[in-house]
């Protein structure tokens, strides 16, 4: 929990155009990406954003497609806000926060069409690849969502698809090639703190924010958006947030590209 005077302090700074750690409003903390972090995952990435650390792991299995998309593989994104990452998180089934986090990242990836789901079909109507992306925050230093989105896409780029045996079962630890991806969708969330639009907040700034807007984009397009928080944005603010988020995503994408060897 944040105290009133600390909230007040952060809000006053924001009104004066300042942040506690001296960053510009649209300035991210240092972003580091380490792929291949979890060796038993088909793909993984550990993202460090200042104090925040999020691990994403991808598991591949073979399953039956949904009837309405019989020629497509299945993408699933799941997130757990476990108590190791923050004194505010609890055990138990995912609550609203974790579910929203997973869904925002899921839509960013899905709507960008970066994964060719048809290419994940093994035998139509019968067997397809099931791609499970699990988001695992290690330390909540604020802005888990952007870190998680970057971790997810970096982990997907790290995926090595296993070979299949005669019974169409994956052979663990083998590599038949990388998962093919077309784009790198990057979520960038803008937080409204006392009217100022701030990016990549630490956890105190995040706790002081009245509203947030996540904009996921690929080169040339915005692909998903989500507004959250108790307060609202003005039209002008939404447009500015989208523009800044798009520009910021372009910067961050370069870091991802480098990390995944593109």
């Amino acid at each position, binding site marked *: *929990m944040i*105290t*009133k*005077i600390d*909230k*007040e*302090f952060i809000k006053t700074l924001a009104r004066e155009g300042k942040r*506690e750690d001296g960053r510009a409003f649209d300035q991210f903390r240092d972003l580091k990406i380490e792929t291949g972090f979890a060796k038993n995952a088909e793909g993984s990435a550990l993202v460090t954003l200042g104090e925040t650390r999020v691990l994403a792991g991808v598991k591949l299995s073979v399953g039956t497609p949904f009837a309405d998309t019989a020629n497509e593989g299945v993408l699933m994104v799941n997130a757990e806000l476990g108590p190791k990452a923050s004194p505010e998180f609890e055990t138990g089934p995912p609550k609203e926060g974790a579910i929203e986090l997973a869904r925002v990242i899921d839509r960013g990836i899905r709507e960008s069409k970066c994964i060719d789901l048809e290419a994940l079909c093994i035998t139509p109507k019968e067997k397809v690849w099931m791609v499970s992306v699990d988001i695992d925050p290690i330390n909540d230093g604020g802005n888990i969502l952007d870190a998680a989105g970057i971790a997810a896409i970096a982990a997907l780029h790290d995926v090595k698809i296993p070979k299949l045996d005669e019974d169409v079962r994956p052979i663990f630890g083998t590599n038949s090639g990388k998962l093919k991806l077309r784009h790198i969708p990057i979520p960038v969330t803008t937080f409204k703190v006392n009217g100022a639009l701030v990016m990549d907040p630490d956890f105190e700034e995040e706790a002081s924010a009245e509203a947030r807007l996540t904009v996921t984009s690929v080169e040339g397009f915005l692909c998903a958006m989500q507004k959250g928080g108790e307060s609202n944005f003005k039209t002008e603010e939404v447009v500015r947030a989208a523009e800044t988020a798009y520009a910021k995503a372009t910067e961050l994408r370069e870091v991802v590209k480098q990390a995944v060897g593109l």
Partner: protein
Amino acid sequence: MNGTMEENVESAPAPMDPGSVLIASNKSIVVPGELIAKGVDFLPGSGTYKEAGEVRSKVLGLVRIKSDRLISVVPLSGQYMPFAGDGVIAVIADVQISSWMADVNAPYVAFLSLSEGVEEYVDLQKSDLTHYYDVGDVIYAKVLSVSKRKDVKLTMRDRMCRKLHGGNTMKITPTKVPRLIGKGGSMIELIKQKTGCHIIVGQNGLVWIKGEKQDLAAEAVLLVERESHVEGLTDRMTAFLDSIQQVI
């Protein structure tokens, strides 16, 4: 008692039993279970326990030996445990009919009754207690009492006690509070003087800072948090504060 006094020629108050051996040296880092000393002459102080004639550490911390006999370990980490008389910075967590509950950064929520919280007469029919302290407000209070079962009571009936306005708060490891205050308040006075900030240090590890250079004061506090276990802290602090003053 056959005197083997060689080891303690300078200060040994009394000869030691030949079975008494000091294993860990003063100021060394020890972990839970680590053997510090054995023998009848050594007494277990805070942060230690004695079992089968051996004094061992309970915590990760620094060994402190007093009068060559009393062994304690100053923890390098850990939570605050309230103690009667402590001055603490508390955050109001709930307002009830005639009392407040406050978070004192401890495993136990503290209780502040109306009579201990406010000096003036309050007519509960007419008055809303949030007028005095509301949820999220920060106060400097004294721990009035702690029962065996850890019921913690606070009081505002002390010269320094008040609601804090403005500035901001930070948390340090509560076990490092004595180092932040320094001998006779020397360390905190140094920081106050060189930064010109108002600073209140709660025994519970919360620090309230207000002033133009509060970010510098905060950095100085963090220096204590990070480096207090390494010798020469006062000198490094002076150097740090002087270097900052030159820049400004």
